């Protein structure tokens, strides 16, 4: 008997026979009157910042103004001719696209099949995540309605910079991943 069969047989023998129905996950839940504000506040509380791009400005101008001193800036689209993710080791700023933002927890959903190396999200010292300003949802209930994994792929919620409190509960920003995270709404 294979291990799979052995395990499944044991489970079949041992599991209770009564079955309660799968509950509805779409429960009555918190909504925010001002989602922009809630998102910005929450992101700030977890160490990141949210900025709304001024109407007359482009993303390029924003980057030029705010990240002037950085050497290596890589965007998702420029990863296609990089052969191994290890080459992204010293990226100072990664400019990436976020699909939508979640007001309750300051997270942004990132899933981009065009990005060749997901390592970009984690190796870069700073992240600039560009998100459509009309795509902030209240909670994870709305968020998961927007996510689809019918096909293979990788996606991640990122909420602020990488952090740890493993040394005496002292919060330190920048454990392994980004030390700075800015969500730019356009």
């Amino acid at each position, binding site marked *: 008997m294979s291990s799979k069969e052995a395990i499944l047989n044991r489970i079949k023998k041992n599991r209770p026979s009564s079955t309660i129905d799968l509950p509805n996950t779409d429960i009555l839940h918190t909504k925010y009157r001002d989602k922009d504000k809630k998102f910005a506040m929450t992101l700030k509380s977890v160490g990141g910042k949210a900025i709304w791009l001024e109407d007359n400005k482009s993303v390029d101008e924003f980057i030029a103004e705010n990240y002037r001193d950085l050497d290596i800036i890589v965007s998702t689209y420029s990863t296609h001719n990089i052969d191994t993710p290890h080459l992204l080791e010293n990226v100072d700023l990664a400019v990436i696209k976020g699909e939508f933002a979640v007001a309750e927890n300051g997270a942004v959903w990132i899933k981009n099949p065009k990005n060749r190396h997901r390592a970009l999200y984690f190796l870069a010292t700073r992240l600039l995540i560009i998100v459509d300003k009309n795509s902030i949802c209240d909670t994870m209930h709305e968020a998961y309605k927007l996510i689809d994994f019918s096909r293979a792929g990788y996606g991640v919620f*990122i909420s602020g910079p990488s*952090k740890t409190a493993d040394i005496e509960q002292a919060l330190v920003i920048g454990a392994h991943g980004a030390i700075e995270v800015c969500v730019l709404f356009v």
Partner: protein
Amino acid sequence: MGHSEKASKFVANSERMHWHDKALWFVREKRDLAAHQLDEWEELRRVASEIKSHTMDRLDYYLEEFEKNAKQKGLHIHWARDAREHNEIVLNLLLAHGAKRVVKSKSMLTEECHLNPFLEKNNIEIVDTDLGERIVQLRREAPSHIVLPAIHLKKEEVGKTFEEFLNTQKDNCDPTYLTREARKHLREKFLTADASITGVNFAIAQTGGVVVCTNEGNADIGTSLPKLHIASMGIEKIIPRLEDLSIFTRLLARSATGQPITTYTSHFHAPIEGGELHIIIVDNGRSDILSNSDFKESLHCIRCGACLNTCPVYRRSGGYSYGYIIPGPIGSTLGASRDLQANKTLPFACTLCASCSNVCPSKIGLHNQLYKHRQNVVKAGLLGAKKRAILKVTAWVMKHPLLFDFMGLVVRKIVPILPRSIVYSKANVWGRNRELPKFPKKSFKELYKERIK
């Protein structure tokens, strides 16, 4: 050695005990703040608990669904009956890929399987990459908490450890400095790793993918560089639908540390370019717990650690006093289910205050389970001789009301006039760190009778 003997070592240093207690209470308070911000908190717990119950009742079905869908996405699935088989699978995968250096992110399951020593014996370098885990790994210790592995250590101790292994500045124990040094040290490990191993927070039957939650991003960096990713999961990590995550991601981090969500919530439904993702589904005693209606709910655990943080016993006795891989209330019930003989003192490391059951996001009746385990300890004849004798005498006295009244009277009269050396003699374990209350003149029964006259 039982829990209380091990705990007595920890409490011997009262300053450290209080420090530990406070550190964890601080985390518990953050959890409360986060939970109270949501009106639907109790609803979330109810739904989480129902999803888990439903899934456990049909676990075989969902595991097969998961396997089918994961395979369709090109992921590889392995099944392991026990720890030994799990470790063999890992080793064989590593050998097949010529992997010598492995980075691992936090996984209580691999702790349970004692994977690290096994791989080291087979000449594979395995590096824990969660900062807390790396600290205890360098010190050759086990994690003392399931979410905060190094919570028992002071920064000076961490500083010393880093001085020894990472060549950090002498006596510099600033957490930011130490974390930055660890970042450099571990970056190098990530960039030179041949394979990565992670745990699994949730495995989605419907989509055939797994979800891993971290704050540091170690699982995420670790899996995005080397070509081989091995994810180990217990059979109970399955959830039926993608949308179930809307419930669990709202509960997990709030319960664990009071954050609204972990910094990274990675959804793996594909390996990296040119890579392979292997998922090992491990039983290792879990299916036995399923058959016991008293304890099967312990499989609903999402390893948030809230029950540890709130437990008055855990906070004051530390993770190592339990002598089981998972400490605290959830560890006590899991340990007792696994091996009652070896863990017979754990169900008693509990005041039955029920705080654990109240904070548990999946609504596990932890204190009820510990109470039931106690009864099983007694039934199995595993109670110590002294405790058994005391219980016998107490039960006998309580069954004889007149005798009970009389003894109460004698104690009330005699104890106050006895010399301290007798009352607080060695036999009075309770009085070692405590003072007896002042004895009243009359018993409750006497007072009550006077009242209703």
